[in-house]
């Protein structure tokens, strides 16, 4: 591991995960993971299926409570100060949970209001995100009629609509065709810098092309955390660790 996992400088770390574990009975989904995410960076969580990536992201978003350890988002504890912590996060789950009976604009407005935007501020935020994820031609369409690619854009749009500091993406290119994958990667890179992005993937190329740093997980344990700039051959590193 070429980076310190000790508590970070609070001026740069926006997410802090301290010795976090999650157990389901005897099964440890995540074991003693500690890491920090810096403001504005793209962190890729890389690992095979079942390595604990989704569980870790779900704990970060407050959906799951850790069995042990502590997570903070923008300085707020995800358990004790859950409401404040959640305001700073936009979350795009792998399953693309959307309300099929709603139209795209209606859905984004609902999420914007749910995440705390006022009735006055929501329409502008929705317009902004529709333009950002290029949904203009589908804004009035019922979500159930959209293709997988458009549904992915709506899902990312709902994660961005309340202008969160942190965007959490779980396997963001799963099920997309090559063109949609390229577009989604470009969108993620375009958001880098203005927002902190934490994305999980089991695809090496995905992380190589989008992340500033990579955290490699296996069987719930953090095996390595390093900058992509210091990782000329991610494939070799991954094979050596797993």
């Amino acid at each position, binding site marked *: 591991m070429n980076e310190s996992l000790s508590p970070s400088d609070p001026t740069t770390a926006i997410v802090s995960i301290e010795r976090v574990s999650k157990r389901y009975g005897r099964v440890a989904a995540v074991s003693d993971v500690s890491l920090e995410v810096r403001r504005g960076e793209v962190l890729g969580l890389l690992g095979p299926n079942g390595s604990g990536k989704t569980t870790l992201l779900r704990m970060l*978003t407050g959906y799951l409570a850790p069995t042990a350890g502590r997570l903070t988002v923008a300085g707020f504890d995800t358990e004790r100060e859950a*409401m404040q912590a*959640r305001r700073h996060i936009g*979350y795009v789950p792998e*399953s693309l949970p959307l*309300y099929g009976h709603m139209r795209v604009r209606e859905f984004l407005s*609902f999420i914007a*209001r*749910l995440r705390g935007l006022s009735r006055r501020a929501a329409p502008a935020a929705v317009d902004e995100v529709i333009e950002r994820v290029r949904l203009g031609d589908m804004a009035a369409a019922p979500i159930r009629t959209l293709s997988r690619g458009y549904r992915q854009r709506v899902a990312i749009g*709902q994660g961005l609509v309340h202008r969160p500091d942190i965007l959490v993406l779980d396997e963001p290119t799963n099920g997309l065709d090559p063109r949609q994958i390229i577009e989604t990667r470009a969108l993620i890179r375009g958001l880098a810098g203005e927002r902190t992005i934490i994305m999980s993937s089991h695809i090496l190329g995905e992380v190589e092309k989008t992340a500033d740093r990579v955290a490699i997980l296996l069987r719930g344990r953090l095996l390595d955390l390093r900058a992509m700039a210091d990782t000329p051959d991610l494939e070799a590193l991954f094979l050596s660790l797993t």
Partner: protein
Amino acid sequence: MSALAVLLHKELHATFTSAVAYAVAAVFFLVTGYTFSLTLFFTKVANLTYIFHQMYVLLILLVPIITMRAFAEERKADTLELLLTSPVREVWIVVAKFLAALTLVAGLLAGSSAYAVILGLYGEPDWAPIYGGYLALLLLGGLLVAIGIFTSSLTENQVVAATCALGLGLMLWFADAASYMLPAPLDVVAINLSLIGHFTTFVGGSMFLSDAGYYLTLSLLALFLATRVVMDR
């Protein structure tokens, strides 16, 4: 409260754009309208006691169909994850679903008030049992909705949710039957658990706080349990 308003708006939209609401309303008005017409023509008596008892049975049968999708559908589509990672307390999600379903039930009861209006126009009904009956039906509807929300929170299968809610409703209806086999004071508990025992007093025109308290207490218990289930993920 703002989050509750946003959630309630979404739930009302989902409820009233669903074919289920209109199918339930159609069955409810078809059956009660048929019975009202028959009893009025045959008995020529200006009261709604018979209709109220029929509505009691219809609510036990139909409310589980209204509430079955509440959480089961959200679980199935994974949209519950979206709600539970928003800055919204679980209790507001439960309350919004409860109020939306109760609004539909209240709408059914409001529609059926046409029968009382007809009696008022052409006869001289005793209004106390009618007011009492509607209050009892609203309280009963609230309890059945709360039970349905609770069973829906337990599963992602809507049919299972509806079946369990129907089962609980029927068990509460017939709870007093067990009193014949139970020793004191459990027999009194069984009698007091019965839905029908707390319903007939209202329909008779007598209103007791204890009867209203029964419906409210069990409703709150069911909503509390639903909230705990949603929190325990």
